[in-house]
């Protein structure tokens, strides 16, 4: 792969750098030769609660001056106190409000996609009940996304994180059930491998609804640097290219083992990518 292909297609998510400042992250990107950011809205780097149009505009200008571009926005939903599938109505309302606030942030940044997770059902409640709560919230958020010209990227999760979306079939069913043009999907190659699924499963099930890829190595789980796991990543990339997928790939290399040296972990990935065959 040449540097041009790398820079055009690949972004880095800053959650890998959660123990470092955002300035450190930007410096690391420059050294890696990457100029695209999947902005994670964790308070270590970006405070979604206190952000204003002015502060976002200033951040955008700063990034533009440095030749950087935010290509998508990933609010922190799983770890923070929100849950679209909660049996508590107040929690669901707070969660939808937080998601809409983040849509405003995404719009201010000028991006047209934002990650959304389905929430998680309590394991001692019927999963169908939790699914309905999630669907209802996702419908409302999708409408708010449409009003802002943003497409939601629905993320599948391992069973330890959520009992709602841990197969391609579940993702497809959720998208079809919500049935909103602003609800699309992100394919996380690590989660896919944990589920024992294939890239072709997602391509055939989701088609044009597949709008973004999270790429990492895995064993098959964990979000590992390339070479630290067992996944045939170059094969996945070739298959996605051959399918006509032209969207972005986010390098999401945030396993805890790299927390003290994320730049080095990302450098390993970049070095590996540059050895891949050029796209045809």
């Amino acid at each position, binding site marked *: 792969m040449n540097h041009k292909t790398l820079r055009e297609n690949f972004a880095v998510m800053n959650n890998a750098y959660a123990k*470092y400042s955002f300035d450190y992250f930007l410096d690391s990107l420059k050294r890696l030769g990457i100029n695209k950011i999947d902005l994670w809205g964790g308070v270590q780097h970006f405070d979604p609660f206190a952000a204003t149009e002015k502060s976002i505009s200033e951040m955008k200008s700063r990034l533009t001056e440095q030749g950087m571009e935010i290509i998508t926005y990933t609010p922190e939903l799983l770890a923070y106190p929100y849950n679209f599938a909660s049996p508590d109505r107040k929690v669901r309302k707070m969660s939808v409000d937080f998601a809409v606030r983040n849509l405003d942030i995404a719009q201010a940044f000028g991006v047209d996609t934002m990650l959304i997770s389905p929430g998680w059902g*309590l*394991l001692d409640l019927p999963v169908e009940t939790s699914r309905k709560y999630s669907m209802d919230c996702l419908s409302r958020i999708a409408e708010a996304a449409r009003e802002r010209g943003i497409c939601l990227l629905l993320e599948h999760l391992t069973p330890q994180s959520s009992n709602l979306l841990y197969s391609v079939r579940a993702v497809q069913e959720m998208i079809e059930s919500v049935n909103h043009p602003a609800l699309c999907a992100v394919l996380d190659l690590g989660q896919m491998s944990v589920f024992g699924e294939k890239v072709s499963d997602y391509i055939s099930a989701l088609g044009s609804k597949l709008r973004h890829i999270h790429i990492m190595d895995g064993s098959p789980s964990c979000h590992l640097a390339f070479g630290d796991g067992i996944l045939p990543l170059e094969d996945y990339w070739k298959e996605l290219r051959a399918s006509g997928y032209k969207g972005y790939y986010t390098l999401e290399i945030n396993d805890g083992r790299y927390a003290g040296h994320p730049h080095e972990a990302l450098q390993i990935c970049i070095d590996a990518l540059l050895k891949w065959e050029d796209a045809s």
Partner: protein
Amino acid sequence: MKLKDFIVSTCAFSRNSLEFALDSIANAGFDKIQLWGQVAHFHPEYINDEDANILSERIRGRGIILDSFFPEGSIYPFNPASPDPEIQTATKRYYHRCIQLCSIMGISTMIVTPGSGLIDRPESRTMDTAADVLAAIALDAREQGVELALLHSACVHLGSFAKLKELRQRLGDAVGIVADAGLLAAEGSCIEEALRPENGIIRIHLADGMHEHLAFGDGEIPLEETCSRIAAAGFADKTILVLNNRRYVLHPEKALMQTAEAIYKWL
């Protein structure tokens, strides 16, 4: 130590209802809990005073003792050591509410995460910022009659027992420490030394593994011996089981039962 000496943290049940957690804890033979404040069970920002009262009555009505309150602080958007003034303010506001809830619910001890710095920023700034923010929280706690304790956990700049002691010195003796037995072992600290009164430990978090929070038997810690030493130091009824390793998320009740059975075998 007896089974009923142990306190169980509800944080092991992150994907279950609080009722399920309480049922599981009672079924395993325990009757004391550390109440974890997280959106699945009990989130300080969402619960009103009346519901907090009802919740505490419901828990006590089951014959369960509320030992302490542990509001989630590691992964939530609050950080006493953050260089961002907005986050410092939000953190104080969050813990102010947590302290109020302790007062309403009759919980005398609250655990606070000391905060995490940034690796590329000076450690001294992390310590100074955390000390300032925590001083305000500690004053708040004192005024409400709540005992505050700093959590021993893996975080940047403030993750070692030595650093916690340093932070505590700056805050004064009214603030205690909740030590993590696995972290103490990983740091090579002697438990008897750590538990000396001048170090201010008021609770111990205990699990198998070196800060992996595993069920008893799933790690390498010599737990029967460790518990004897804890008991000999006078902490038999101040030991909290924290079994929240991710591998148990789908069946935390099994991890707790396994731990109870291991303890029971020693009796």
